[in-house]
């Protein structure tokens, strides 16, 4: 079974600075998807960024970027120019390839990010 590990239960960053959240995963598959979700106090799950394993180029969405190291099974999230609105719980998630997995998402335990003014 796939597992997703987020080794940092909590992180903090000063406003306007950069922070990196770590995620590692374990899988025997060669093709899969990885995601970062943001969960603010409203409880809503918000997709931040996704990465297809077959793509070597790291995904970027505005201030959010990932460092995807397939061989190391590492998928870290970098938030640049941190804003107060970035404060939330962040979840790393894995999805196997194809319909055989029934597209199930496996989540890490989450990292609570605090942004200090």
């Amino acid at each position: 079974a796939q597992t997703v590990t987020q080794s940092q239960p909590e992180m903090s960053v000063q406003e306007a600075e950069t922070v990196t959240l770590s995620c590692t995963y374990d899988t025997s598959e060669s093709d899969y998807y990885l995601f970062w979700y943001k969960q603010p106090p409203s409880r809503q799950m918000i997709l931040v960024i996704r990465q297809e394993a077959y793509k070597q180029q790291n995904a970027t969405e505005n201030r959010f970027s990932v460092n995807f190291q397939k061989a190391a099974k590492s998928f870290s999230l970098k938030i640049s120019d941190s804003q107060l609105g970035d404060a939330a719980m962040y979840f790393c998630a894995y999805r196997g390839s194809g319909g055989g997995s029934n597209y199930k998402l496996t989540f890490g335990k989450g990292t609570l990010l605090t942004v200090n003014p």
Partner: protein
Amino acid sequence: DAGITQSPRHKVTETGTPVTLRCHQTENHRYMYWYRQDPGHGLRLIHYSYGVKDTDKGEVSDGYSVSRSKTEDFLLTLESATSSQTSVYFCATRQDGGYYGYTFGSGTRLTVV
């Protein structure tokens, strides 16, 4: 997301009583999932459905059952609620094929006393 409605949003129930949580979607998505979220555990999959009347267990299915009699509704039942089932429950849906994102409901906070 307006495409998924979870009901109720909050519920307090007593140990030993049956509880049913409802997930209703207007997206016509084939796949539906029930997760529970607990501090220190992230989201864990309880059950999922890959079509009407097609369901399967996730990693934490003990004490839960599900039913899906039509595409838009996925029900999660706690046959006899226990305090360990106090949690926030999320429903999610996904369209079939290719890459499509997931749509999450707003969650149901269930407290078993």
